[in-house]
């Protein structure tokens, strides 16, 4: 009761959510907004720092003057990174690999998920268990390595495309989405004489664009960021994906750092170049993901509820 009275006294207005708002709650709103702003800032802090470093001059870096704002503006680091043929090659290679992998993975995932939505599919239960089992038990690192070795896939493109081409989790998300499409649509199509394939292409796929976008994002980010498979299976430098390239570059820095700690080497030269390298690997993701936000939230939620 007291809140209502108080609210009346301070010319209370009703907020959008139907809550009664007075000065006190408004102050609380602002405090929460400020806390959120600080968290947001913490989220961006490392990125801003690296961005500033990549745009600064080497001398300013060595004098430890750079925080969040570049000193001695220049784009030298970026031009020299773009002049590095190996890096540019790796960047292009990874981009093409990512696109190829994403398309192939989506194709395989749809092929796998769609038939399993037919509840009269003969042998469907068995296939379901066959597939779900791999989600909980995997052979392990060494057996997978030996498989690649025996299939003669080490040091080829295929060892980065094939082993991960269907993620069971993503398949389940897709299947759940298909389940959400009313069965009456399928029945109507069947009565009109459409076979399963035609139903899939003309009815299910057009209705599933949001989930396809989400899974495309998940697969693409997974491939762009993936490096453990390349680390284990790839020795040829021209097949290095960007993350592995980056790992090698940064690992040298880290070792140099450790060496400085122990009092050996001088701080690494080409610091700004390393930072520019990191930025180049990050930007494609930054450009893509905000546009798909609406979709991947839906995708995550389906996966969580129905998985």
């Amino acid at each position, binding site marked *: 009761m007291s809140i209502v009275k108080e609210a009346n006294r301070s010319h209370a207005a009703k907020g959008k959510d139907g*809550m009664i708002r007075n000065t006190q709650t408004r102050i609380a709103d602002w405090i929460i907004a400020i806390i959120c702003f600080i968290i947001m800032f913490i989220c961006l802090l490392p990125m801003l720092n690296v961005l500033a470093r990549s745009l600064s001059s080497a001398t300013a870096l060595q004098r430890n003057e750079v925080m969040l704002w570049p000193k001695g503006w220049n784009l030298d680091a970026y031009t020299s990174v773009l002049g590095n043929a190996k890096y540019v090659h790796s960047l292009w290679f990874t981009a093409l690999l990512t696109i190829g992998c994403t398309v192939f993975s989506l194709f395989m995932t749809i092929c796998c998920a769609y*038939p399993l939505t*037919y509840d009269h599919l003969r042998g469907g239960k068995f296939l379901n268990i066959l597939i779900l089992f791999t989600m909980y038990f*995997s052979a392990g*690192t060494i057996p997978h390595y030996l*498989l690649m*070795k025996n299939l003669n896939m080490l040091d080829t493109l295929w060892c980065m495309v094939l082993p991960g081409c269907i993620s069971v989790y993503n398949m389940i998300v897709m299947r759940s989405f298909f389940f959400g499409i009313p069965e009456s649509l399928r029945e109507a199509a069947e009565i009109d004489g459409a076979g399963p394939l035609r139903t899939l292409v003309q009815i299910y796929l057009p209705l599933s664009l949001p989930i396809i976008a989400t899974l495309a994002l998940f697969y693409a980010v997974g491939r*762009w960021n993936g490096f453990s498979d390349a680390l284990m299976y790839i020795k040829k430098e021209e097949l290095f994906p960007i993350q592995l390239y*980056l790992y090698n570059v940064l690992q040298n820095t*880290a070792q140099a750092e450790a060496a400085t700690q122990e009092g050996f080497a001088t701080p690494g030269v080409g610091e700004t170049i390393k930072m520019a390298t990191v930025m180049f690997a990050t930007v494609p993701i930054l450009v893509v993901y905000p546009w798909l936000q609406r979709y991947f939230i839906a995708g995550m939620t389906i996966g969580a509820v129905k998985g």
Partner: protein
Amino acid sequence: MFKNTGSKLRTVAKWLGFLGVLGALVWAVYTIANEGDVVNAIVTALAAAAGSLLVALVIHTFGDMAVNDETRTALAVKADREAHGIFEEPSKAPKTVRRMSWSIYMRRYGTLYLLLLLPIIFFLVFRYYPMQWIALAFKKNDILTPLWQVPLAKNNGFEWFIKAFNMKSFRTALSNTLTLNLMDLICGFPAPIILALLLNELTFKRFKKVTQTILYLPHFLSWIIISGLATRLLADTDGMLNILHRQIAGSGASALPFLSNPSWWRWTYIVLGIWKEAGWGTIIYLAALTSISPELYEAAAVDGAGRFRRMWHVTLPGLRPTIVILLIMRLGGILGSEFDRPLAMSNKLVTDVSNVISIYVYNYGLKSYQYSLATAVGLFQSVVGVILLVLANTFANRMGERGIM
């Protein structure tokens, strides 16, 4: 989805478990009678019994899942139909399909198997075929001769397991895995909940959207990139935080060893994990929040509950099922280990605390060619992992919440 799958599966599981144990016993008695090697017989029998029980447990859980599913779907459908005043049976199409002969069925739905062909080949070749090399865990370390010709390792094939548990480096890896995962659980688990509560209280809609977009950002960065970012921020000599620290505490102050001191490194590792995943983790909680009825908030407000009491008595109870499920699943994965994260974050000075099981497997198996040892360790990890997950899931089902299986 399928009628009575659940109870059928459960029956199958029970029989499988029973027959497995029985078979193991018979086998043990038979071997003792014939060969007199008691130790060998008992070990084999125990392994066989445990194996069949494990398989049975997994199938049983699938059965539980299906039963839950079926009852829930049936109840929901029934309630829905009754709410709309419909009482007749649902469409009869599936039943006619079930009665169809094989040839007609294949003519009409054969395309489905065509679609499934590639995925099934994928699962068989890339998921099931490599399982044969699990046998290497019990054999001599030899990958050049064909697998079935490789002789059994010492101690009835358990040489590598015994060796691993006697190795200091493996025990360190095991304890590191558990320590890091536990710390991650205790600190990392509540983070998205708190963040979601905070976001939920944020009244400025557009600002909320921007905040969310930025909070999701770190999830999309790889651990390699994050380690690059973190080194620049936290390095001893030229990291930003240490530059700041020196400016505040005077240039003589010793650096804060975020990455070079083992116990500091652990916390850095945890904090960066939170930084990466807390924002992403809120999605699930925010979705759960939308299902809480606004009337509850209004009623609470009318009863005089302030912001915090509403959060405590309305929001948190609304989130409880989600929290319980996610917590149990995290507990089930306590022995799992990521690969990218520790590998990217680690450096020479902290290997004692950063080496986890996956790194151990990589180092021993692929770098030092100890294939058998590494396979044995990997097998230990995945078997214990599956058992923990199944237990967690059964527990979740018992509690009336729906597990993930």
